[in-house]
């Protein structure tokens, strides 16, 4: 394993800035480096995105099967939170239908197996269930907006 120097860490931060990766954890020989994007900043970016719901403008290259980035929920030991990410590309919905109340809001207590949102692609409705018992700290995607594979959706504090 290689221990990263400051220059390499700076380069990593720069490289991660251009991706959807919300958090990067590196551990080697007792040294631990965590790079985490500011969630509020990410959310603002999403809100400021042009209004083109469910339509993801893309270069043709994005059409092919994506690489396999790490998409498992990331747990940070220090602040005890878990980030739920999108398991597939599609449209993010916070409620089961346009007239219904959202599944969850910031501050809600949630339990294992509780539905958090739906992601739709081609009439395939993927109901995302909560993996932990906890409290919703942040909701990072906007209702009825497109989300990418691996994009962070919720930050949940474990309780």
């Amino acid at each position, binding site marked *: 394993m290689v221990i990263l120097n400051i220059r390499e860490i700076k380069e990593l931060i720069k490289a991660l800035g251009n991706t959807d990766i919300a958090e990067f954890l590196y551990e080697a020989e007792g040294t631990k480096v965590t790079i985490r994007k500011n969630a509020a900043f990410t959310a603002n970016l999403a809100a400021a995105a042009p*209004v*083109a719901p469910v339509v*993801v403008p893309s270069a043709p290259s994005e059409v092919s099967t994506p690489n396999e980035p790490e998409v498992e929920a990331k747990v940070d030991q220090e602040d005890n939170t878990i980030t739920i990410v999108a398991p*597939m590309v599609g449209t993010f919905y916070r409620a089961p239908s346009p007239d219904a109340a959202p599944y969850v809001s910031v501050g809600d207590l949630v339990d294992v197996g509780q539905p958090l949102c739906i992601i739709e*692609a*081609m009439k395939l409705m993927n109901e995302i*269930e909560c993996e932990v018992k906890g409290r919703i700290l942040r909701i990072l995607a906007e209702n009825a907006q497109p989300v990418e594979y691996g994009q962070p959706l919720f930050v949940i504090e474990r309780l």
Partner: protein
Amino acid sequence: MTVEKSVSTHWPPSSMDTLCSAVLNRLRQQGDAVSGEALSLEMGVSRNSIWKCIEHLRSGGYHIAGTRRQGYLLLSAPDTPYPWEIAYNLPTQELGRHGIYVAETSSTNDLVRQLARRQAPHGLVAVADKQLNGRGRRGRTWDSADNVGLWCSLLLRPKLPPTQLTLFPLLAGVAVIAAITEQTGLQAVLKWPNDVLLDMRKVCGILLELSAEADTVHHLVLGIGINVNQELRHFPDELRSSAGSLRLASGQMQLRVPLLQQVLVQIERRYLQLVAAGPTALLREVREHTSMIGKPVSVLAAEGAVLAGTALDIAADGALLVRDDNGHIHTVYAGDVSVRSPDA
């Protein structure tokens, strides 16, 4: 149309379901009368149980003659999608080998979701004669009148990562098109992603519900509603210009059980091919049946945003590629797509 009598079945099958299935197989195999005594011996149950089973089947629409001397003779079976009717002579490996039939339910998708949590197997099919709360996407209702349609949901436990499941809606759409052609000779078209149209009228809607984590699929519920024997009077006013049925398009009544068997056969064939050889053949078939490719379309997305452009192609993950008037190519994953006249 005479309304058939029906009896519900259970999952897991009740002892009566199992006995009915075995007795029917025996009566069909013989093609001749079988005595109550012989049935009782073979099934390992009392004569009284056999008698109850025959009465149960009769109340479910089977015509079974019975004489003291000769025994029981099956005269006719109803076109009711009981699990044993679906599984009878069904040339599939896994789909439709198990099933449940109910006269009415809120939604067959909801029913299968419940059964999935009770460890029901891959391939289980649930059918209802009537859905009280049939669902479309985003809270829309699906009109599922009594007995005239095929309202069913299939439980799948595909051994594929969630990212590869976006092709399933299209797979189901082209499978239904193939089943309709096998059954009626009619050639339907696919409206992306998976509406099936005959004479420009929608005859089939498909809705899938997935339960998955990042890299594990728990189960996939594939709900299919096919308008089979509706006449225009069966549809509510607001659907009369856009809804169709196999009967309206073919001019004759169609049987539901053989149609469902064909749907299962066609889905399984494409599913096994997708797992074994990848999506190339499926995508080719989807492109062949998608009438909107090359035409001007408008996409009505969530919250009312509209994208106008030309439908270019189906992407490898099943998405629709649309080129807008500025030449930008958009990858569309959801929304209502309609073909517009070039001047609109």
